[in-house]
């Protein structure tokens, strides 16, 4: 039996999250087909076809799929699930939105945020903001999984290209309509694939200071920018930069936390980073308990001093 991996993308490129989820999908042991849905996604399908371990790429194109809304995407997936025992997708916002719809239609309990594939039917996943790891087994006829991308390395390009087959797009939903999007445009690396992340917290105090302090350090290090919930709630940074239990989960080589206390919900999103740096003026800030390098100092003096040392 085979595994279906649903690709996520931004309309231009195959997301890094998909290449990472592919690694998990391959560990299940069955051939992996990748479904690329969207509008004008031939190049993305070609990218998927070049990845190692992909048996086949299925492409469905049409305006109805342009924004990967849950209703048409689930409709599309449901039509082809007969051929698969595992239906998987990276745990991105688009897939977290759509996949439970697929699971419910199949009358299957979804396993969210898989961090380890222990066997074809047994997986590990975090609960309680990652403060516990649960091993779950499913003996249902099908398994529906979302994969936590940060827990797996990306699959690389393979030696050969997988065949690409076209699927018809589903009809548009009569009850759900895309109105618009307000997407961040940044030239910085993406949070999910960045090697270094510089994150700012409530201590930054305003959007202006966030931009004036966090951005130059991030640019100097070639890093992506992240933020705590408090920084996002206060309007210092946009929502898509929130790192944590209910935001983005990241695991870069280096994570620099500036003026972030280290609440469990924030740690849930970054504690698997390889090296953690914390700059905080409170010696008792919980972030120091997990930081490899802690600097107890006012960030408004420490960050300029770091810039000097890096110059």
């Amino acid at each position, binding site marked *: 039996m085979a595994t279906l991996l649903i690709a996520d993308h931004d309309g231009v490129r195959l997301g890094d999250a998909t290449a990472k989820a592919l690694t998990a999908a391959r560990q299940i042991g069955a051939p992996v087909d990748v479904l690329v849905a969207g509008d004008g996604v031939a190049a993305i399908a070609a990218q998927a076809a070049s990845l190692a371990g992909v048996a086949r790429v299925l492409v469905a194109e049409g305006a109805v799929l342009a924004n990967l809304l849950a209703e048409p995407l689930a409709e599309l997936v449901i039509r082809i699930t007969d051929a698969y025992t595992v239906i998987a997708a990276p745990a991105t916002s688009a897939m977290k939105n759509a996949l439970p719809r697929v699971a419910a239609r199949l009358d299957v309990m979804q396993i969210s945020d898989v961090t380890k594939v222990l066997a074809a039917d047994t997986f590990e996943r975090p609960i309680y903001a990652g403060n516990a790891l649960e091993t779950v087994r499913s003996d249902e006829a099908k398994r529906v999984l979302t994969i936590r991308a940060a827990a797996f390395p990306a699959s690389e390009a393979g030696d050969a290209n997988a065949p690409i087959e076209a699927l018809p797009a589903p009809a548009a939903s009569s009850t759900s309509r895309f109105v618009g999007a307000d997407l961040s445009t940044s030239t910085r690396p993406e949070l999910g694939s960045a090697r270094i992340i510089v994150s700012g917290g409530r201590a930054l105090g305003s959007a202006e200071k966030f931009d004036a302090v966090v951005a130059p350090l991030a640019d100097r290090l070639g890093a992506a920018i992240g933020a705590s919930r408090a920084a996002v709630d206060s309007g210092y940074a946009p929502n898509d930069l929130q790192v944590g239990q209910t935001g983005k989960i990241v695991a870069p080589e280096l994570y620099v936390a500036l003026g972030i206390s280290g609440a469990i919900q924030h740690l849930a999103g970054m504690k698997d980073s390889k090296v953690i740096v914390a700059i905080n003026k409170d010696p008792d800030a919980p972030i120091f308990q997990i930081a490899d390098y802690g*600097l107890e100092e006012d960030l408004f003096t420490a960050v300029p001093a770091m810039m000097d040392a890096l110059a």
Partner: protein
Amino acid sequence: MKIIVPVKRVVDANIKIRVKADASGVELANVKMAMNPFDEIAVEEALRLKEAGKASEIIVVSVGAASAAETIRTALAMGADRGILVKAEGRVEPLAVAKLLKAIVAREEPGLVILGKQAIDDDSNQTGQMLAALLDWPQGTFASKVAVDGGQVEVTREVDGGLQTVSLALPAVVTTDLRLNEPRYASLPNIMKAKKKPLDETTPEALGVDATPRLEIVSTREPSGRQAGIKVASAAELVQKLKTAGVI
């Protein structure tokens, strides 16, 4: 229009949970419980819609042990009109919760169901989407803005790249994100009043739903901990250490 708000009783967000020594699960005895934070936001949004004249009645539903009645009372004290407790012992998975909610929707015929996007205990992020699928209703998940206008609801959603807005025909399912609103506290007089509000009880059997878990929890373990590292004395030393470690 009626609004149904499902609320889950979970371990308080400020508590750091402990895994039981025998790996059988998370220690829940004598742990402070509270309404799932995203569900407080859902209750608040329903109240605001009612105050704006867009909704007539708010019904809160909780699936769980008898103690879940307390969580329903909290929502009633915030201002919801009545509650329904679906009494079920042990683990009830999102798929089963969605089926139970579907049965309640069939009885109550609400125009909106507003859920939290995620329960902070199981971190599943599934129930709202599953309910929408079972009802064949449209969904607006991870909402940071909800505007009801006639037979439509416009939902602004927090997505990976920023914000996305969708327009849904009612009836619809909405799930809340953190920035949707700031939930109110219940005042003492309202807490007293809530004690007199109707709270019905039912069971999965009465609703015709098999709530048996589908997944087997083989074991639960603590994640391997991270050791605290070292403190450095200056920014210059920090940069030096990071260079030596080869990360910059």
